């Protein structure tokens, strides 16, 4: 956005002179939006075959991490009523 929304997008105002916090907030926003990865990857050309492999890998990774997180959350359940009550 060179000349169009010039100081509206990707802008963080500095509060109370705390430049470090503002910069880290900006970095957090950019990495959360995926801009940092895009810029880093765009430094060298990524051939279409490599891109397809990477996208497939990331999709599998996402599914695996979600399932593992679900499993761990299930196993780490704490406050349940005692299933062996009375035995």
């Amino acid at each position: 956005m060179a000349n169009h929304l010039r100081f509206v997008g990707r802008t963080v105002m500095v509060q109370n002179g705390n430049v470090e916090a503002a910069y880290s907030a900006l970095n957090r926003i950019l990495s959360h939006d995926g801009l940092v990865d895009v810029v880093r990857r765009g430094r060298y050309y990524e051939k279409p075959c490599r891109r397809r492999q990477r996208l497939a890998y990331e999709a599998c990774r996402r599914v695996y991490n979600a399932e593992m997180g679900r499993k761990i959350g299930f196993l780490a359940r704490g406050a349940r009523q005692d299933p062996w009550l009375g035995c």
Partner: protein
Amino acid sequence: MSAALAVAWQRLLGVARGGCTAALGRGLRTGPQRLQDLTQAAKQAEDQSATDLSPLILQRNSMRWDGKIYEEIPIAHIKATYNNTHIQVVSFDNRPFARTSCGTEGFQNAKKGTAIAAQTAAMAAAVKARGKGVLHVRVMVKGLGPGRKAAIKGLTMGGLEVISITDNTPVPHNGCRPRKARRM
């Protein structure tokens, strides 16, 4: 998006007809920005009606720095490449104040692509701009290099007060093909 824009435009016209023609007459230069601010305000009002999480960007129309509004404060462009860092302080109407880079500060070759070099270059630029009467500055950073954070820190250490940080890294919508991947 166009619906929100239409709503915001109607509100702007309503405000103008209410008698506040000074806001419209301030200049076509700031017109689109005010429209975008109103659009964002409308969207924010729709999203968070009860909570007061309005970011500072919406409130900065009423903030003043040395009596100047946000759009009149000089800009410090920082171009942080992987091998060097350039800093240029410019006024809001593109009159130059100071221009330094790691090379002008005496560093050579690989040492230019370091954070310390960027910090010294920023401190020199800040001192030069201070000499021309610049106090507050809004920073625009371009590129992901080693001098990105260090240059902002150098500007504050050199005496300029940073009021906002913008990221202006160019992101092509699949334009020019970059160079081939390195095989190491």
